[in-house]
């Protein structure tokens, strides 16, 4: 079946995340979608698979206009989505996982076990999976679960398969097997939409590639008519005005404060080594899932590592818990602000002073509310945090103001090392530039800063050095003067 879209657009609470997408996929074709995080490709496939409804535009299937109001409607039209993380029923059998939702008969009719077991066996062996359909799903590998999802799509006679980063949880060997099956399905006339961050994979499997950027479809090209460099250029787009990186006096002294030597965490990162100097802003670039957040959490004592060592101020240390790390002089502004950064139903003042319990309490461990107000108001004034009073609940503040509170919290504890994980996510442009100023000031005072950000312009305009990561490993450490969006992307994707 030939699927095409005409001027598809999507707006979320006033924000235009997808604009005028004209896209088509043909039977017997693998069509790759690429783009940075947030470029709109996920939103687009969610529209095709019925998770979102488009705010504008039309979708046609074989020249016939269709409405995809729900995942079920998509499936009825022959469109199936294979999730990045397989959606399995671990307690049920393989055959039930394949046929759940479209078994023969009404509610109270008997499940035709023989039929579904036999059909499952047939479908599974057609994609080369030798597995007893009566086996319980629990304990099967991610790769097998993914195959079973594909088998589910085949059992519904799907004609269009959307695969959302199917290779990211797989081993290289498993990727090879998956590609064999994708090629086989392609020969049988299936239309396949394939999302991946790995350009070499796209080159190996896709016939055409479509590049998304900032909610726009930038280009659709035959894979053999475009180079990797061109794809990357399309993904990044025009050059954004860059602020210059600011040097400071501390940096000239070249004092190493933290030295990470060859640490690994199975499944997340491997052989990570780097030094951090006083007054330095060390940027961490890479795609989501490259292992940056896990490294930050490990240094902060929230997660464990299996080998290697961390040296801090000349001594080998092991942070067993965040509490220990805070006492040693570490601070961490987490990526997920709501979940991990704030105590939503607690007052702003108490949030700001929550990392320094000893400074605000007397000998009996009772909190002195006057000290709390004094300490917090210093930063509320300094950062111009907009609120009605210090007793206001932090959850009532805007994202940008919440972030200022979190940074205030760590400034009060006077950390030697501050880890910032996506510090400007979801804050507006004004707050962003204020935040940049604060970060630079901190470095100027000698604080060593680890900055994790998915926004390349942000990394480029703040970091003295940039560590680029891909799939758990450091692929390059760049000096600020050698770094550009193109070089970073090259090492982040390759």
């Amino acid at each position, binding site marked *: 079946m030939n699927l095409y879209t005409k001027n598809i657009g999507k707006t979320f609470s006033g924000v235009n995340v997808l604009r005028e997408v004209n896209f088509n996929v043909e039977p017997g074709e693998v069509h790759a979608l690429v783009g940075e995080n947030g470029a709109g490709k996920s939103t687009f496939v969610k529209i095709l698979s019925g998770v979102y409804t488009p705010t504008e535009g039309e979708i046609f299937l074989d020249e016939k206009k269709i409405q995809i109001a729900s995942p079920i409607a998509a*499936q009825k039209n022959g469109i199936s989505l294979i999730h990045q993380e397989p*959606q399995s*029923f671990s*307690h*049920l059998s393989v055959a039930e996982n394949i046929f759940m939702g*479209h*078994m023969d008969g*009404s*509610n109270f009719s008997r*499940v035709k076990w023989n039929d579904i077991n036999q059909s499952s066996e047939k479908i599974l062996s057609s994609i080369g999976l030798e597995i007893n359909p009566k086996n319980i799903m629990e304990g099967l590998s991610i790769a097998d679960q993914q195959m079973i999802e594909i088998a589910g799509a085949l059992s519904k006679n799907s004609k269009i398969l959307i695969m959302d980063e199917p290779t990211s949880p797989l081993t290289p060997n498993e990727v090879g097997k998956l590609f064999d099956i994708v090629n086989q399905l392609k020969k049988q006339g299936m239309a396949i939409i394939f999302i991946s961050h790995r350009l070499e994979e796209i080159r190996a499997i896709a016939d055409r590639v479509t590049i998304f950027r900032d909610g726009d479809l930038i280009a659709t090209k035959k894979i053999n008519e475009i180079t990797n460099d061109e794809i990357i250029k399309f993904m990044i787009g025009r050059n954004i005005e860059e602020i210059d990186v600011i040097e400071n006096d501390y940096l000239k002294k070249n004092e190493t404060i933290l030295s990470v030597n060859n640490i690994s965490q199975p499944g997340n990162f491997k052989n990570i080594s780097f030094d951090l100097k006083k007054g330095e802003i060390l940027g961490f670039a890479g795609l989501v899932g490259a292992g940056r957040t896990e490294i930050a959490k490990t240094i902060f004592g929230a997660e464990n590592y299996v080998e290697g060592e961390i040296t801090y101020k000349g001594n080998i240390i092991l942070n067993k818990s965040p509490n220990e790390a805070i006492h040693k002089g570490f601070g961490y502004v987490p990526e997920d602000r709501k979940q991990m950064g704030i105590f939503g139903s607690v007052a702003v003042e108490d949030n700001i002073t929550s990392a320094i319990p000893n400074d605000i309490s007397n000998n009996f461990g009772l909190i002195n509310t006057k000290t709390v107000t004094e300490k917090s108001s210093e930063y509320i004034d300094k950062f111009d945090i907009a609120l009605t009073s210090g007793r206001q609940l932090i959850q009532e503040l805007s994202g940008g103001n919440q972030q200022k509170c979190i940074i205030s919290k760590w400034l009060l504890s006077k950390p030697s090392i501050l880890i910032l994980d996506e510090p400007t996510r979801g804050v507006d442009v004004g707050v962003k530039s204020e935040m940049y100023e604060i970060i630079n000031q901190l470095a100027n005072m000698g604080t060593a800063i680890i900055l994790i950000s998915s926004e390349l312009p942000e990394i480029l305009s703040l970091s003295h050095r940039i560590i680029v990561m891909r799939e758990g490993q450091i692929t390059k450490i760049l000096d600020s003067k050698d770094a550009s969006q193109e070089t970073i992307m090259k090492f982040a994707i390759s």
Partner: protein
Amino acid sequence: MNIFDKFLRIRELGIFSIIIIVVVIASSIDSRFLTVDSWRAVFLAIPLILVMAMGQMMVIICRHVDISIGSILAFAAIIIGFIFIHYPGTPLWLALLITASVGMIMGLVNGIIVTHFNVHSIIVTLGTLSLYRGLVFIVSGGRQIDRNDIPVHIISFSQTSFFFSIPAILIFSAIIVLITHVLMRHSVLGREIYATGSNPEAAHLKGINITKVTLFCFGVCGMLAGIAGLFYASRFGYVNPGVTGVGIEFIVIAGVIIGGTSITGGSGSVLGTFLGILLLGIINVALPVLNIPGAFQKAIYGLIIVLALSLDQLIIFRVKKLRESSNA
């Protein structure tokens, strides 16, 4: 797969072993435990609990819990009690229909609040536990239904027999258990209940109407609690607003969990639940037979429940290890 291996795959193995252990220990202390009389006592005590456990099991498999069942039982019992006072000739089938309907409505109310207002089922049913009990007092005006209010043909339901010497109430319960087994194990809806509990998000994406599935489970759970209300009136011969069904939810839930139903949803079986309830019934009968002083019985009962749960997990874990090593 050899027979031994197949045997080890049975989830109910743990609970079955525990039942054997308890029976062996009890009968070696006092051989009176092995008499027909004590087993008769066990099987007379369990129908009421067993019927409620079938519904509770379905609710727990779809990731919820209903702790209001004791009050639903009492409300259905009080309603049917007053009907008996005014219409002593009400036939058994009609009484069953009335208590089932009353219970089902109350169960559905729980389900609707859970699904449509998105409140956690523990909170909802904790509330209705009290609400429904309150309705029992309001409707009855605090008055107890006495033995002479309940017609003879209802009393005899739990005492006489039409098949060997098995009481009718036990046969009726066995039918409910069998129907539940077929429903859960072999019907499309039954498998959808497991799927919903195993992974609600995935179930929704596969086109299962999880609201409908959840409502069905709560409806059946309430219905069976209502029927248990009639069983109560028949077996004990009275209905007291402040006593009937109080605390029964703990026994039912404990039995379901001991029987291997996962509290996090998605797994559990009718056979396991039956064995769980049977174990509780055996302990209940064994304690007095073994001359354990009344003051200690409740504590020992609770202790055995905790031990059984731990032991079951241990056995499951060991068997899993054994299976893995035999596979390797």
